[in-house]
């Protein structure tokens, strides 16, 4: 195969002529800029890229991308994108969604897109609040959250989006943060290269209704003691001085954080995103505490499995390849199949 021609697109090529209408200071601006800057790297013509979204602040995203785009219905973007992706394997299809859109009203479509392994890149902007409807708690809000609809505190236990995606056996699961452009783009890069569903949770700050939700992961003074930066093939250590590490305690089911100083080097888990059993990545997803301590970011899981699109397309292609007649001839044959009889005039 010859080398693809370099398209030499720039971030500017991906900016649409529409005025961006998020609140000033919204984390969505940073994500939009990071995505627009990253897109040229794909070297895919703009016309072959489609962004599909649902409803919510994040779902306005497609209007601002100078690609094809559809702003659809609350929760339904994965379903609509599935039909598009399956019938048009030549396209690069991205879904932009939020915590309410993907995990509440659209939870069913999300898990089914993931279990089918549809060739979609799903970016879930998680701000742990309903922004567009002005501040109700979301399915990722913490228990006891005081919001407009929960004046004495939310009684709901939240979803852990990474755990949920892994429960659906997503083949690619990653997490990143709106304000860390370099990291965000590294996860996008890995997601884009993945064949099948790639699920990326992006922690995103809503400065109006849930400001500072992820401050522990952003404050330069403390973030290193909170964040676990996952790197494939590397021992999992973290903390300003690498003072913490992740181990798999004998006899236990999951993973635990220990002090590096008191842990033998061979006990420290070496991150392997390619572990076939989702239980490993699931254990990683359970590490964070309620105060966001021990939050892994990066690629939790990246395993190979044929995409739904490719299986469906190959079934159609195989059936078509066997046909020797024109479609009209085939149709005439189909209409006249089964028991027929002829009446002579």
């Amino acid at each position, binding site marked *: 195969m010859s080398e693809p021609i370099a398209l030499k697109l720039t971030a500017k090529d991906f900016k649409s002529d529409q005025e961006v209408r998020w609140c000033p200071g919204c984390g969505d601006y940073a994500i939009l800029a990071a995505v627009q800057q990253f897109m040229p790297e794909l070297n895919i013509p703009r016309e072959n890229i489609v962004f599909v979204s649902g409803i919510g602040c994040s779902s306005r995203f497609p209007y601002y991308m*100078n690609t094809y785009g559809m702003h659809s219905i609350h929760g339904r973007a994965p379903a609509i994108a599935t039909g598009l992706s399956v*019938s*048009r394997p030549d396209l690069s299809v991205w879904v932009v969604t939020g915590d309410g859109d993907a995990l509440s009203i659209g939870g069913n479509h999300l898990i089914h897109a993931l279990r089918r392994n549809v060739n979609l890149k799903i970016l879930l902007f998680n701000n742990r609040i309903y922004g567009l409807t002005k501040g109700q708690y979301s399915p990722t809000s913490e228990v006891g959250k005081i919001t407009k609809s929960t004046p004495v505190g939310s009684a709901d236990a939240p979803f852990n989006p990474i755990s949920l995606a892994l429960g659906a056996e997503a083949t690619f699961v990653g997490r990143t943060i709106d304000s860390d452009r370099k990291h965000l783009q590294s996860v996008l890069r890995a997601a884009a290269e993945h064949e099948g569903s790639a699920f990326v949770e992006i922690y995103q700050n809503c400065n109006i209704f849930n400001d500072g939700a992820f401050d522990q992961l952003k404050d330069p003074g403390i973030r290193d003691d909170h964040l676990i930066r996952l790197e494939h093939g590397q021992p999992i250590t973290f903390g300003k001085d690498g003072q913490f590490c992740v181990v798999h305690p004998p006899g236990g089911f999951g993973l635990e954080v220990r002090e590096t100083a008191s842990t033998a080097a061979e006990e420290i888990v070496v991150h392997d995103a390619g572990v076939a059993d989702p239980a490993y990545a699931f254990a990683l997803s359970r590490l964070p505490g309620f105060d966001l301590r021990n939050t892994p970011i990066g690629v939790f899981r990246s395993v190979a499995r044929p995409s739904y699109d490719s299986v469906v397309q190959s079934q*159609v292609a195989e059936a078509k390849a066997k046909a020797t007649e024109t479609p009209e001839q*085939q*149709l005439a044959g189909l209409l006249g199949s089964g028991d027929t009889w002829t009446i002579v005039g």
Partner: protein
Amino acid sequence: MTKQIRQLDRVVIRFAGDSGDGMQLTGDRFTSETAQLGNDISTLPNFPAEIRAPAGTLPGVSSFQVHFADYDILTPGDAPNVLVAMNPAALKANLADLPRGADIIVNTDEFTKRNLAKVGYASSPLDDDTLDGYAVHPVALTSMTIGALAELDVSKKDAERAKNMFALGLLSWMYSRPYTSTLRFLERKFAKRPELVAANVAAFKAGWNFGETTEDFAVRYEVKPAKMPPGTYRNITGNAALSLGLVASGVRSGLPVFLGAYPITPASDILHELSKHKRFGVTTMQAEDEIAAIGAALGASYGGALGVTTTSGPGVALKSETISLAVALELPLVIVDVQRAGPSTGMPTKTEQADLNMALFGRHGEAPVAVIAPKSPSDCFYAALEAARIALTYRTPVILLSDNYVANGSEPWLLPDVESLPDLRVEFATAPNGEDGTTFLPYLRDPQTLARPWAIPGTPGLEHRIGGLEKADKTGDISYDPTNHDFMVRTRAARIETIPVPDIEVEDPDGDARVLVLGWGSTYGPIGAACRALRQRGLPVAQAHLRHLAPMPANLGTVLASYDRVVIPEMNLGQLAQVIRARYLVDAIGYNQVRGLPFTAAELETMLEEVLKNV
């Protein structure tokens, strides 16, 4: 002995038994044999929603009625001339429909004390006066089948299960049906179990030979072929015809067909059928729910496929929000609603026409769509093509209102010449359409059709964003402008209202009728049969049938105004009648029943006769 052969012009047979007795298959085979002979046919399957209701009970009774004649017929027949009752439950459930004098063939082996008690018979109706006035033929169907198969290497259970073929053999003999297609069918069906081919063929032949030798059946009947237009025919159900119509729409448009569907009675057979036709570029997706099914179909349409979703009433309710999105996006989409009795789960295997209001009005906002309805099983083929034509030409969702009666009923279908089917080719947008030569305006309309350009992803230079938010005229940009919204709402209404549809035709052979019967959808057959019967009695009545329910034919108002009375029979509480009254200020008379069964021609005839008396 030589048996007497009597000629009949028409016969209605009902096969009835337990859900597990194979009555649908038996009826289907008898129909196929009858089709081979060239009779006109109409069939009516009637079965419970439960897959295996408790054996021998009334709720477990499944039946299949076939009407065949030497002339063209329009309905599966009001009352059976012959009932085959495989057990007491089947007899009890169907006896009320039988006119006195009808033949009843009963499987006496099943008339045990226990089975009689299950359905509340204190004594056997074969022994008391219950069946006085009927021609009862007691046949030990089960034991004779087992006896006939004694020499074969099959279990007693398999032998007992072949009793439906014994019944089929007997009926095939009685009505002089050709049976080679049934033997071929059995070979195909049990290809992997040759011992079952042998068993079923032996049971069939035993039934045939029993008819020939027993003295109980002294007469054999013949029904001569009907005079039908020349050509090649096959017998087809509505769901099968609809599926083929969708395949044909793909071929005639040159577009891949994408079906998103979630299993639901009575629409699932369309999903089953289309999943077999991948070689036509048909993709089927069994979605996680009704909403995903239509969402995926809409996504495929956005990408340049013919997106289709098939369902029944409860599914349409779930899809409503996505239909509204499709109205806003102005993309082609075919939504098939095989109506069943509602509300809620209702009676999933019974028919009704009560989704018309939902199809016309059941969405949020002003969200007009085109609505069409087939009038018979084979018409489902053409209705599917017409739905695709409107969807593709006018870039709109189209709701196709089938129902359980046409979906599962069958009739002979004169196969069309493929080249004569409508040309559905479409043109995608390929170049900017703005005056400056570089801008693309996704909502700049074709002045004729009011359709916007279909610019599919992958087309360079036409990158654009669409969505559910209100769009500015021409540019498609988000717009909250009051005047623009008013304009767009009216434009979306106008683009449906101005779709040209054929004028409605009136059947009034002598042109002297003062009463018009207006119907839509599956009531065509019974209404037509009732009108014919009245005319034969010298009572003039006109019939008109709506295929297009939105928009309605341009001449409908004039037609309605030219009659003294308009009668609208519907299997709902008057949904079309309400629309007709509102739109045309016509004081239409409704005739409504919602029993889960089609109208009988006789009840319509009686009702219309009353109306005629009062004009």
